[in-house]
């Protein structure tokens, strides 16, 4: 059973090499790798749920000396969500790049990104995290630049520089930690870290680096152009997973390792930035003229919600209420990952079929592609946070925590953000009801429409109605 951890890293890595060496069979290799990796992810989730935390020391070297892989409930959940998104996007990309020569460059990078993502989620030590973070960032930039147009190159270059700056800040923080405590193992660190200048400055450096990569307002400037100009499956993964991975690290730092050290006022600052992100991102999404830009700004806003949890989790005493809020945070992140990737895939279909993604001119397209439009509607339900989506449960716990902690400001922000999300979603959906000719058979689902539908349905119906195990799994922690 323990071997699952190594498979989750080795499989996509081997797939990437194979796809590089045998470009002719790349598509087949990637799809089978994707299926195998997803099965491993599901197995991991099951194993963590039944046996608790999983640990694997490569080569038998104990943590601290060798490389250790570990998985708790949180990591397993994110890893499974990523697998679902990447599997669906792989199938989609197979159709998306069918006639495209970019394919041969795309597939190896794609699996490399998956490798980096899994390794990051499974790492238990800060240096390995830095390495995987760098690998993740670089493969993401390479993928984002694939479209090759000037705008895409510019955006990718900016993305690269921001990413490098973020990693450097993170590395600086890691160095400080090593100098101060002589260990980089996260489990050990959480026991030895003590309040003081070293911990604070290390935390500050690493956090700023990660926030830059997570695109928290006002450090979000690079995200919309980068996510909006990448090919659709890449946008999906960038928006749904790559920013989540860095967010996951922020969570680990703030809620795990440094939880005893964190100063409440600073947690409030994160909350305020999150609130600004919710309002600003939603407003920009409402004003966006292109669908992809709308989706990208919506990501900025949705990430903001996640940061609203920090001051609340800080304020709530350990216990049932805090656990419930923690689950809310995770289910909101999962729901956004699924919904947003589905949204980008759907937009990609619209872009390919009609040659544009200008919202104003969507009328005919929205009616010709009912399945895609439906996927957008499902995704919108999750982005707004309406029932029965997982985001509804997440927002419920977010609001509930705000009421329990007596932090009223966030409540108003959440209410306004929800309404803005509804406004930008229905600005798009209104185009589905024009008076254009409609297909005789209402649902003609092409192969590339299925992934978007499944992902968004998972976010909206699956997580919403069967989300209770998330809270159970989070109890399994290091």
């Amino acid at each position, binding site marked *: 059973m323990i071997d699952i951890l190594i498979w989750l890293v080795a499989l996509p890595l081997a797939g990437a090499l194979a796809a590089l060496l045998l470009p002719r069979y790349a598509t087949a290799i990637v799809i089978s790798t994707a299926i195998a990796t997803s099965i491993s992810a599901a197995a991991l989730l099951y194993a963590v749920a039944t046996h608790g935390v999983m640990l694997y020391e490569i080569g038998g070297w104990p943590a601290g000396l060798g490389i250790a892989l570990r998985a708790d409930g949180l990591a397993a959940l994110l890893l499974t969500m990523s697998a679902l998104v990447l599997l669906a996007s792989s199938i989609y990309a197979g159709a998306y790049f069918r006639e495209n020569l970019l394919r041969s460059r795309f597939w190896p990078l794609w699996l490399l990104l998956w490798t980096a993502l899994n390794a990051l989620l499974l790492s238990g030590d800060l240096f390995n995290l830095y390495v995987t973070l760098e690998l993740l960032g670089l493969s993401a930039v390479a993928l984002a630049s694939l479209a090759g147009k000037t705008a895409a190159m510019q955006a990718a270059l900016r993305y690269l520089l921001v990413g490098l700056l973020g990693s450097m800040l993170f590395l600086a923080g890691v160095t400080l930690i090593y100098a101060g405590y002589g260990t980089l193992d996260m489990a050990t660190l959480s026991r030895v870290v003590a309040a003081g200048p070293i911990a604070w400055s290390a935390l500050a450096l690493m956090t700023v680096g990660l926030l830059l990569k997570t695109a928290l307002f006002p450090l979000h400037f690079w995200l919309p152009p980068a996510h909006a100009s990448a090919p659709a499956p890449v946008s999906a993964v960038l928006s749904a997973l790559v920013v989540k991975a860095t967010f996951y690290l922020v969570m680990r730092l703030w809620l795990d390792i440094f939880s005893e050290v964190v100063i409440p006022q600073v947690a409030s600052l994160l909350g305020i930035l999150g609130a600004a992100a919710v309002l600003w991102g939603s407003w920009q999404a409402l004003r966006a003229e292109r669908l992809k830009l709308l989706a990208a700004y919506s990501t900025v806003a949705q990430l903001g919600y996640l940061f609203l949890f920090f001051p609340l989790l800080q304020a709530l005493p350990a216990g049932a209420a805090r656990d419930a809020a923690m689950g809310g945070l995770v289910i909101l992140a999962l729901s956004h990952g699924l919904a947003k990737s589905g949204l980008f895939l759907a937009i990609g279909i619209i872009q390919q079929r009609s040659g544009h993604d200008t919202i104003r001119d969507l009328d005919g397209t929205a009616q010709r592609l009912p399945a895609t439009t439906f996927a957008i509607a499902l995704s919108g339900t999750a982005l707004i946070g309406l029932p029965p989506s997982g985001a509804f449960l997440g927002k419920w716990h977010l609001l509930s925590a705000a009421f329990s902690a007596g932090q009223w400001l966030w409540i108003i922000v959440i209410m306004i953000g929800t309404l803005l999300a*509804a406004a930008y979603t229905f600005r798009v959906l209104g185009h589905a009801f024009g008076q254009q000719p409609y297909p005789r058979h209402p649902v003609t689902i092409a192969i590339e429409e299925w992934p978007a539908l499944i992902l968004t349905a998972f976010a909206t119906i699956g997580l919403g109605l069967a989300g209770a195990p998330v809270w159970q799994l989070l109890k399994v922690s290091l």
Partner: protein
Amino acid sequence: MNFDTWLPLLVVVSSLLPGLVMFFLDEGSHRLRTVLNMSGALIKLVLVGIITWGVFHQHIYETRWTLAPGLELVLHADTLSVLFVILSTVLWLVTTVYAIAYLEKSPHRSRFFGFFSICVSATVGLALAGNLLTFVLFYELLTLSTYPLVAHRGSPEALRGARTYLAYTLTGGVLLFTGTVWLYSIAGPISFVEGGTLNQLHADYHPQLRVIFLLMITGLGVKAALVPLHGWLPQAMVAPAPVSALLHAVAVVKAGAFGIIRVVYDVYGVEFTHELGLLTGLGIIAAITIIYGSVKALSQDNLKKRLAYSTVSQVSYIALGIAILGPVGTIGGIVHLVHQGVMKITLFFTAGNYAETLGIHKVSEMDGVGLRMPATTLAFSVGALGMIGIPPVAGYVSKWYLALGSLEAGMAWWVMPVLVTSSLLNAAYFLPILYRAWFKQPVTEWPNEKILPARFETQTALLWPPLITAALAVAAGLFAASPYSPLEWANLIARREYGL
């Protein structure tokens, strides 16, 4: 798990499943769609029959499902939910027959009936909701599923109406949601319990409870079209006639009114609401809405708009009944939930028939229509007279109980004038229509008459639904005192609410 725990879920699923299947049907597969629609509606009717019998005999039907820690989805049948479920189920059946005929050969039927079924599932779901969370969940689902129905025609006007509808209802939804979460955070999971549970909270919470009440009633008031939150309703008139019929009689406005009943009686408890000083405020808003809606209806020439403002006014009778302390007023309010539904759906069906058969959209075009379409106009007259409150149509029963209740509660000095004024206004905007329809000379040519192969004045399937609902409206008035009548059931509810 036995049948009793599945039954409430099955009632919801019996329309949800056909609805989801219908999305995938070919536009041309008319017959299959009809079979799905009708079998769903009939199965639901049978299930609801079983539940009604069981609830009367104190059986417990409950479905539970955990969504998250502390958040449970509960479907539970009690007397109040049964009343609303029966109303929805019966009227859905009739409306489905009507809609199939009404939309014949029009585009996007698969989409229409898909959302139509989801809309009814949401209504039944919120009727059966056993706690506030479940109610909110279905309440929002109702908003989502009615939006495509209002926008169905796709004209700029329809899209605008739908947008307005959405802006109002989603804002209301956010307020209700916030209030609900707030309430959960101070009082734990809120189940609907006859008599309410919040009076056990410490007095320190009372100011918060007042604010929460305000949030929730505002959120619910949007759908119930309480003035000044009614702005969406006249604009949503652009929807096809069966949608308007269902929206006005059962689904949307009634969901709001039903929610207010739940919050006042089963969350706060009516006496506790009164103690907090909130009941009078609700009564004043209801009174204003009743008068305002009637006054606005007077000046509308568009028939559906006139009916829409009439709905604004009539639905607030329910809120008025709630605001009248004491079981008699409660009976009046709750029974009006059913009576108004049956009468209003009749009126909208007939309005749809005029539009569909003769192209009549305005009151001023209705001269002599009674001679051309006597059966339809008869049904219309029944509905209109019922709204005014003329026996034996059901409307008078509600008004009678409201008046009696206000006397008992010592509120007659302001309730009576409201009732009298409103009835006079109702007469003032309905009687001229009846006069025109029956006694004026018909015009030589109707605005847009369709040549129909039918034997009757219009298609048979369009004719029967209003006749049936009109008959129901009369029956509910004539046999008000017999067992299983809406009035008797409302009596039972009031007895259980007040613990008599």
